[in-house]
C-alpha cells in the first residue's frame, strides 16, 4: 500500500522526487539586505537594553496583524443602516469612527461616499453618479486602523502611477464596470488624511441585518477598486 502511494506520486508529475523538489525555505529565497540586518541589530539592542521586551514587540505585531477589513466593513454596514451615523461619518470620519468604538487617533479619516445619479427637474440640476478610489502616489498611506496592512498591489509603482493617470483602465483591470456617465474621483493620500470609500448599499440587501451587510463589504470595495458583493452571490459562496 505504501509503495503504491509512492508510485502514484512519482507518476503524478512525471518525475522522481529528489531533495531539490521541496519548497525552498524562506532563508533561501529572502534577500537579507542591509536594512534587514539593521532591523535585527536594532531590535536585539532595544531588547538587550530593556527598552522593549520581546513580548511587547510580538504583541505589537500581533495587534497590527489583527487589524483588517472586518473593521472597516463594520463601519460601512453601520452607515448603511443608521443615517445619523452616516452623516457624522461623512462630516468627521475620525470622530465618528472613534465614537463607533475603533481607536483611530491620531489618524485623520476622510470618508468619501459613492453616490448614484440623481435625476431632477429641470434636467440642469441632474447629479451624475460619483465613484471614489484611493491611492497614495508618494508611498503607501492607507487606513490601516480600518483595513489592516495594504495589499502589495496598492504599494506597487504601477498602481500608484496609473490610479491617477488612467483610473478607468485600472478599474477595468480589476473587473469593475461603472454605469455610463459615472464621475470618478481619485483621492491621493499625499499628507495627513487617510481615506475610506463608503460604497453604495447593494440592491437586494433590504432585509439584511447589519452583521449580514458587513459580509458584503470587502477591502477592495473600501479602497474603491471594486463594488461590494451582491447579496445573492455572497449567499451562494
Amino acid at each position, binding site marked *: 500500500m505504501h509503495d503504491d502511494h509512492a508510485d502514484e506520486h512519482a507518476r503524478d508529475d512525471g518525475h522522481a522526487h529528489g531533495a531539490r523538489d521541496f519548497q525552498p525555505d524562506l532563508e533561501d529565497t529572502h534577500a537579507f539586505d542591509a536594512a534587514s540586518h539593521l532591523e535585527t541589530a536594532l531590535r536585539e539592542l532595544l531588547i538587550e537594553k530593556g527598552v522593549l521586551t520581546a513580548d511587547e514587540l510580538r504583541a505589537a505585531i500581533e495587534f497590527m496583524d489583527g487589524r483588517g477589513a472586518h473593521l472597516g466593513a463594520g463601519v460601512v454596514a453601520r452607515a448603511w443602516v443608521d443615517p445619523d451615523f452616516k452623516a457624522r461619518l461623512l462630516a468627521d470620519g475620525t470622530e465618528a469612527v472613534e465614537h463607533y468604538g475603533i481607536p483611530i487617533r491620531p489618524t*485623520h479619516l*476622510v470618508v468619501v461616499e459613492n453616490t448614484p445619479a440623481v435625476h431632477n427637474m429641470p434636467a440642469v440640476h441632474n447629479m*451624475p453618479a460619483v465613484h471614489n478610489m484611493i491611492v497614495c*502616489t*508618494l508611498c503607501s498611506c492607507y487606513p490601516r486602523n480600518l483595513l489592516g496592512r495594504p495589499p502589495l498591489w496598492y504599494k506597487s509603482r504601477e498602481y500608484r502611477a496609473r490610479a*491617477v*493617470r*488612467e*483610473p*478607468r483602465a485600472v478599474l477595468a483591470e480589476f473587473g469593475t464596470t461603472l454605469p455610463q*456617465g*459615472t*464621475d*470618478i*474621483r*481619485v*483621492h*491621493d*493620500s*499625499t*499628507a*495627513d*488624511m487617510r481615506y475610506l470609500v463608503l460604497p453604495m448599499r447593494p440592491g437586494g440587501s433590504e432585509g439584511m441585518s447589519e452583521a449580514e451587510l458587513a459580509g458584503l463589504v470587502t477591502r477592495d470595495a473600501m479602497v474603491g477598486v471594486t463594488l461590494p458583493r451582491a447579496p445573492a452571490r455572497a449567499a451562494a459562496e
Partner: protein
Amino acid sequence: MSRFSPGDKVRVLADFARPGHVRTPWYCRGKTGVVERVCGEFRNPETLAYAKDGLPSLPLYRVRFAQRALWPDYRGGADDAVEIEIYEPWLTPGED
C-alpha cells in the same frame, strides 16, 4: 489661520524647489484646482522628516483638480477629478 477657503481657485507652485521630504506630487505642480476643504493645521513634513519639530504648523488643504487639467490627453469623463492634499506654502491664488 488659513489663507484659502473651500471653493477658492488655487494654483500649485511649479518653481518652488525644496529638497527632501516634499509631499506635493510632481504631477500637480503648476496646475490649477479648487479647494475642496481645509483639513486643519499639521506639522511641516519638509522639516519633520529630519528629526526637527515641524513647527510652525501649516494649513493643509484638499484641492480638487479636473483630470483634464492634469493630463491633456486624459481619456475618461470630463468631470473626472483627482483630489490631493497640499500644504499652504505650495499654493498661490489661481486666476479666474
